[in-house]
């Protein structure tokens, strides 16, 4: 038995799956400021008639960290950076950033040493301003973490109770500005996230559930509850990822599908290409911060069932903001939901009010209520269809750095248009017609997010760069740097080393059973040549557990 729980801003959705079938579902309105009680209610609702021993796995997704960041409710963090030579970082003027000496280059070599006195000066300044949380980030610290560790050790020596977060641990990919933001956010949210973890543990303890517990990541994978404490930022945007996985679970495997999640004010679009959800190429932006957190490529179109519709001259305009409920539900303005009601595409709301809303809107332009409703629906469908086309074009235009990537054929359009979310039933068939796909409105669409959580699998990745000229290697995700002790060290040794790190990581996280298959996603070898002699090799290897979902549910729910 697998339980999936999506803790949203207003609702908590839960499902229990048994052998690839939905056993029960639940939708609980959250009790404000009482996460524990929402979790307990959700568990009780889906576990009816099932004993706690039968639960093998619990997966949760949460918008908690996303909301903290968007609403800027996180703790203040002092920032110490070592940028060395390169671009000037203008955008950090607003944050409390302190630049100190110390520089590492792209091959992890020291260019400029750290000056201890400068660090002490900065500590004094931070103390005066009342900081107890500090992010220490160096350029290329993923290639050599020595400077960050040194600075961190100095801080801990003088301020043992401060919380210091280092860049190579929080943001392991190449991108210094994003590493700074990711480290700051990790530092700023850890304490608050701890409360979430405690609540989850408490809820499961009270219901005697001893199953493995995982947390959804933005990329559609999961991490263990314990390891998530080290990287709370990884949970941002895991809600849309869960919905996409849910849609994937509810359609046939291997299909190319577009997932359309029509909510109150936005429509989220996601792509499943030949059965694999598309990842964004860059990290996600949250609030005003660019992170290194990779998400599924979800595009948000500011149009939804509750968007306000106005008429200017003879032209209908949809605004992105929500001004309350649709007119037919007692709201102040006409909305696309009213149009759906008039066209008989939804049973939501009061029919007379919906007609009235359309009449008010269309009158000045000489349109009948029916015409107005049809035009509004066309406008929504047009807007979404245009963004779908853009999304595919963007995907086709993603940069390519290798010949084979350029030559790969990348012309693809979706077979299915899968609708989830409140407004889906009214719009998805028409969107599908517009872009030439088959509309799919799967059962359980309203809890697709919780289903997605339940079927999500742990994902582990290890990116290793070995430099035999310097006899060093680094593991990006761990911020680890070590010496190469083997000789000779060729491609096979490099690959085995990366695999070993992946397996060890899985063992540490108690999910060794998940690494029976290892996928190699990148394997590159560069000769290091100096004065026309090969002096070493660089091996760039990336291995991961296969991305995928546990099961597909039922027949797929195709309409036609």
């Amino acid at each position, binding site marked *: 038995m697998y339980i999936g729980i999506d803790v949203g801003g207003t609702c908590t959705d839960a499902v229990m799956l048994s052998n690839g079938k939905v056993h029960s579902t639940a939708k609980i309105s959250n009790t404000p400021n009482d996460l524990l009680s929402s979790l307990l209610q959700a568990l009780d609702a889906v576990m009816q008639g099932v004993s706690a021993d039968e639960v093998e796995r619990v997966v949760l997704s949460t918008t908690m960290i996303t909301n903290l960041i968007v609403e800027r409710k996180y703790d203040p963090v002092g920032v110490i950076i070592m*940028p060395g*030579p*390169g*671009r*000037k970082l*203008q955008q950090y003027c607003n944050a409390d950033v302190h630049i100190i000496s110390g*520089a590492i*280059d*792209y*091959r992890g070599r020291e*260019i400029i040493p750290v000056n201890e006195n400068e660090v002490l000066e900065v500590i004094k300044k931070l103390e005066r301003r009342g900081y107890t949380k500090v992010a220490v980030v160096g*350029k*290329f610290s993923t290639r050599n973490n020595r400077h960050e560790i040194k600075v961190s050790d100095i801080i801990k020596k003088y301020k043992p109770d401060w919380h210091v977060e280092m860049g190579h641990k929080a943001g392991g990919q*190449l*991108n*210094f*500005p*994003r590493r700074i933001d990711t480290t700051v956010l990790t530092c700023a949210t850890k304490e608050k996230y701890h409360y979430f973890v405690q609540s989850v543990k408490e809820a499961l303890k009270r219901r005697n559930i001893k199953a493995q517990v995982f947390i959804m990541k933005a990329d559609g994978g999961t991490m263990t509850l314990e390891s998530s404490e080290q990287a709370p930022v990884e949970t941002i945007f895991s809600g849309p990822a869960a919905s996409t996985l849910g849609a994937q679970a509810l359609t046939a495997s291997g299909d190319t599908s577009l997932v359309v999640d029509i909510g109150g004010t936005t429509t989220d679009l996601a792509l499943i290409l030949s059965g694999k959800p598309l990842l964004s190429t*860059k990290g996600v932006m949250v609030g005003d911060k*660019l992170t290194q957190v990779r998400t599924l490529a979800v595009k948000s179109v*500011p*149009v939804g069932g509750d968007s*306000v519709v106005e008429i200017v001259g003879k032209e209908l*305009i*949809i*605004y*992105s*903001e929500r001004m309350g409920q649709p007119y037919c539900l007692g709201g102040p303005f006409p909305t696309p939901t009213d149009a759906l009601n008039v066209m008989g595409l939804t049973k939501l709301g009061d029919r007379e009010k919906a007609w009235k809303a359309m009449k008010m809107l269309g009158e000045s332009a000489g349109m009948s209520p029916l015409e107005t409703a049809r035009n509004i629906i066309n406008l929504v469908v047009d*807007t979404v269809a*245009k*963004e779908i086309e*853009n999304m595919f074009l963007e995907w*086709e*235009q*993603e*940069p*390519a*750095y*290798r*010949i*084979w990537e*350029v*030559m790969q054929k990348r012309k693809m359009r979706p077979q299915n248009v899968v609708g989830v979310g409140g407004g889906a039933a009214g719009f998805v068939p028409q969107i599908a017609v517009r872009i030439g796909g088959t509309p799919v409105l799967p059962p359980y669409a309203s809890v697709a997010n919780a289903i997605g959580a339940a079927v999500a699998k742990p994902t582990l990745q290890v990116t290793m760069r070995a430099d035999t000229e310097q006899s060093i290697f680094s593991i990006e995700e761990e911020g680890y740097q070590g010496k190469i002790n083997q000789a000779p060290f060729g491609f096979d040794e490099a690959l085995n080393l990366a695999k070993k790190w992946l397996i060890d990581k899985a063992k540490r996280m108690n999910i060794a059973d998940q690494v029976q298959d290892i996928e190699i996603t990148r394997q*590159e070898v*560069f*000769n*290091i*040549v100096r*004065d*026309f*002699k*090969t002096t070493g090799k*660089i091996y760039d290897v990336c291995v991961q557990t296969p991305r995928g979902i546990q099961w597909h549910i039922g027949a797929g729910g195709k309409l036609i």
Partner: protein
Amino acid sequence: MAYWSGGEINMKNKTGLVFFPAFDWSIGPVHPEREERLLYTRDQIFEEGVLDLPEIVEYRPQVATPHEVARAHFCVPGVDDQVLVAHRIAAGAAIRLSDRIMNGEIKNGFAIVRPPGHHAMRVVHGNRGFCTINNEAVVIEHLRRTYGIKKIAIIDTDVHHGDGTQDIYYHDPDVLFISFHQDGRTIFPGTGFTDELGGPTAYASTINIPLPPGVSDKSLLYVIDNLVLPILKDFQPEFVVNSAGQDNHFTDPLGSMLITAQGYAQVTEKLKPDLAVLEGGYAIESALPYVNLAILLAMAGRDYSNVIEPGYNPEKIVENTQVTDYVRKVVDHLQKVWEHRRSLTVSELCGNSKYYQKHKNIFYDTEYFEEKQLEKVRACQDCPGYVLIDSHATQPKIGRCRVMAISIHGRCCKKCIEEAWDAYNDAKKDYRYSYVYLQDKTEDTFITFRREDQKEWHTEG
């Protein structure tokens, strides 16, 4: 209330980037033109986060078509025999950016690509100076054909003379080619002297500025301010291409110059190229990561003042005063040439002969063989004239081969066009030529004739 407008963003102030490091292509495992060349540049550009800057937008390269290549080159025996996919992608990267510039999506673009192209000449028997096709020429022919651009300038800032680009545009008055480089007596390819000024119908549309070894930022900027910029101002190009080689850097293993990343950025800022295309530069660790970053920031109008190479030591890169004086003399001389360029007529430049002709020996250093050419241009009073090239070489791919290649400029007069077609038909009957080619830029037609089976192929744009 925010109005939803469908996501159009004003991109007019953006700089486009195509980064194509060709991580799966090399000339040879220890050759300077190998997979590793842009690896550290990639690391630096990614780590700096410049691709997140609102001023910079990254594009995927496209693949240049054989016809796009044939607008600039006569590949012997054919495009597919000489040109690899890697070459077509590098050229395609430049085409992609040029299209985005022309449709107003971006203000300028930088193609950080390999393989390079500025040593590739009009006739291609093989690879020379690490180049097979001329990325700049392919994009220029695309711009002329697609957008009707008339006047284009190419500024070659590589340490080596851009002899390929010069060869292609030597008789073209509409394309101004300016190259500064280390003096040909001290470095490959051994050409690019001040007296190479273009043919009689295109006099002074080729300007070579040979510089002695040991030139630093100061003198280079003197050349830009006092010679290159005034010439550009007079010429009034509609589009400026920069062949952005980076081997003038003080750490380059092939060149002997003293230019820094700051110097390159300042040159870029002054030249304001619409499109910059990476050429040479083989100090892959000490120069390229920093120079590419500095140029990109300069093109995007961002502060590049902190882009300083770890090996930079101002005391060690001091220019000799003799070098300074020599550079001034070269500039003085060329200023005069430019000033008096209009006083020479076509007949004064080549007497009363119908053709201006030149014998050329072209060495293909990658595969070690030589091509012999007789190049003739019709010294027409009314138009740029057409070009006839009688070329033979013993290339490794097909052995000994003699070809006739005819190129008709897009502004050729009716008489020249007729003469050129007659020359083509005559050459087809001439048993000495295994292949006969005709490039008619007035019609965007390219024809190949193969003697062996008397077959003729046309490609059209």
